């Protein structure tokens, strides 16, 4: 499998602040790749460095073997970025913006007009094609950004928090469209705060924190290596005090009962024994594996997993 993107010891400094501390990893061609991390982890900085919106302080980034600094014309043709910030242009309609953007890439003609029509149709923008972007809602602006990123048919699509502030319907539309692009062979790189989305969509994820990669693996492997599974216990008697060994395993305590974490090698009978010793009358027990959010929080220390 050839490589779509290679990050090689990428650094970015703002004065004494190191936004990226020597990031190195690769994204394979055709992958659906998730770039996760808390706010300020450096995800957008890395994506912007790849897209040419900022100049890295050191290292190299290659897209399909081309260097983003030396061979920027090739890499920008290969990349389509949906930026995180919403963008408006008070002078042009959506269709005009798409035509102008095509022009920047030197693409014109009947075929391109058809592609623009298709994008407008697929992203439910056809009836707003002649509207100025300033007049659009946030969700519409987000769709325009996706159309702009796809107008030159890039092989790698980078989506920086594409569903932030977007309603449920549109979120589903966007993911369906993105999955379709992935099936057609596009490499997708995604940053998102919605970890359940990343878990459902991404085959591989990198988790970043404070400018470093904390974890890089397939989503299934990351979930598999998490040391705990989770036990949801519905109880009859909520006022019973928990034993010390249960307290150390307690993750959540709400009206429905308790959520405990349990080492994978421990059996359910051990868990039931602990509940029994605390005098808890168990109404129902359900177990599940860790979610990506729990893996994420364990790795970034955002909360006790």
């Amino acid at each position, binding site marked *: 499998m050839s490589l779509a993107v290679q990050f090689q010891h990428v650094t970015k400094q703002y004065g004494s602040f190191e936004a990226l501390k020597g990031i190195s990893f690769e994204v394979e061609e055709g992958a659906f790749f998730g770039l996760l991390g808390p706010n300020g982890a450096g995800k957008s900085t890395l994506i912007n460095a790849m897209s040419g*919106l900022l100049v890295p302080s050191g290292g190299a980034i290659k897209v399909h073997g081309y260097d983003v600094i030396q061979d920027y014309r090739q890499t920008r043709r290969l990349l389509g970025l949906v930026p995180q910030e919403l963008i408006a242009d008070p002078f042009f309609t959506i269709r005009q913006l798409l035509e102008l953007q095509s022009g920047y890439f030197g693409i014109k003609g009947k075929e391109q007009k058809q592609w623009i029509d298709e994008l407008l149709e697929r992203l439910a923008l056809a009836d707003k094609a002649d509207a100025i972007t300033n007049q659009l809602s946030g969700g519409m602006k987000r769709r325009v950004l996706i159309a702009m990123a796809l107008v030159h048919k890039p092989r790698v699509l980078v989506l920086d928090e594409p569903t932030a502030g977007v309603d449920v319907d549109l979120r589903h539309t966007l993911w369906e469209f993105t999955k379709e692009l992935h099936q057609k062979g596009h490499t997708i790189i995604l940053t998102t705060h919605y970890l359940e989305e990343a878990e459902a969509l991404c085959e591989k994820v990198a988790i970043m924190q404070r400018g470093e990669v904390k974890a890089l693996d397939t989503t299934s492997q990351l979930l598999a290596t998490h040391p705990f599974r989770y036990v949801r216990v519905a109880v009859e008697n909520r006022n019973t005090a928990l034993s010390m060994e249960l307290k150390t395993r307690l993750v959540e305590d709400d009206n429905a009962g308790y959520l405990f974490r349990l080492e994978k090698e421990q059996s359910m009978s051990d868990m039931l024994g602990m509940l029994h010793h605390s005098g808890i009358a168990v109404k129902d027990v359900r177990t599940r594996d860790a979610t990506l959010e729990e893996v994420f929080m364990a790795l970034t220390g955002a909360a006790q997993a």
Partner: protein
Amino acid sequence: MNNFNAAGCWALFVKEVKRFYSVSVQTIFAPVVSTLLYLLVFGQVIDTQIEVFSGLEYSQFLIPGLVMMAILQNAFANTSSSLIQSKMHGNLTFALLSPISPFEFYLAFIAASVVRGLAVGVGILVIGVFGFDLSFNSPLWILLFAVLSAAMMGGLGMLAGILSDKYDHLAAFQNFIIMPLTFLSGVFYSIHALPAIWQQASHLNPFFYMVDGFRYGFFEQSDVSIGLSLLVTLFFLTLISAINLILLNKGVKIRK
């Protein structure tokens, strides 16, 4: 592959022209009207009282200067306002993500500022020829100075747009640098009418050479030689272009 992206450069140029054309009342007609007001007030009222060059009425002297002042100010306004607006709205990102080189970016913006400067200049001249006795002795000099000066001011506007983080910065650049230099560039007077020290000071103002060279094209009289004016204009155009290209290549305040 790293050859000139002519199609991309052209598309950006077209976008910039369409941008100012879509608000042409503000970008073309308003400066034409305000310049004609200058002409009305200064030209008609003072016309009979001053003779700047021998055999030349004051209004004949004034019109080329006013035209050049309008060209300079509008060429500057085009690049500077477009860049700062694009930065504020974020839509500069679209051009930055495209395979357009810093030189192509520069060329497209400067060419559009020249078009706007010339559109305003031609607008004033078209109305001017109906009311005043204008001669166009050397049209090539007129065109050459109009284009080079507009390009230089477009470049200065780009520099201001790149360096400004907000509209306030741009306003400071415009009000404290561009306006004084254009008003003190001999638009309204011949520098020979000034005291010696102010004549010397005027020679330090690059805009003076642009106005003087442009005026030469109309009635073949000028304060300094046409060759010197051309040299100074070319020098500043080259200097401003070089500074802009260095900043664009480094991505200063654009590619953060």
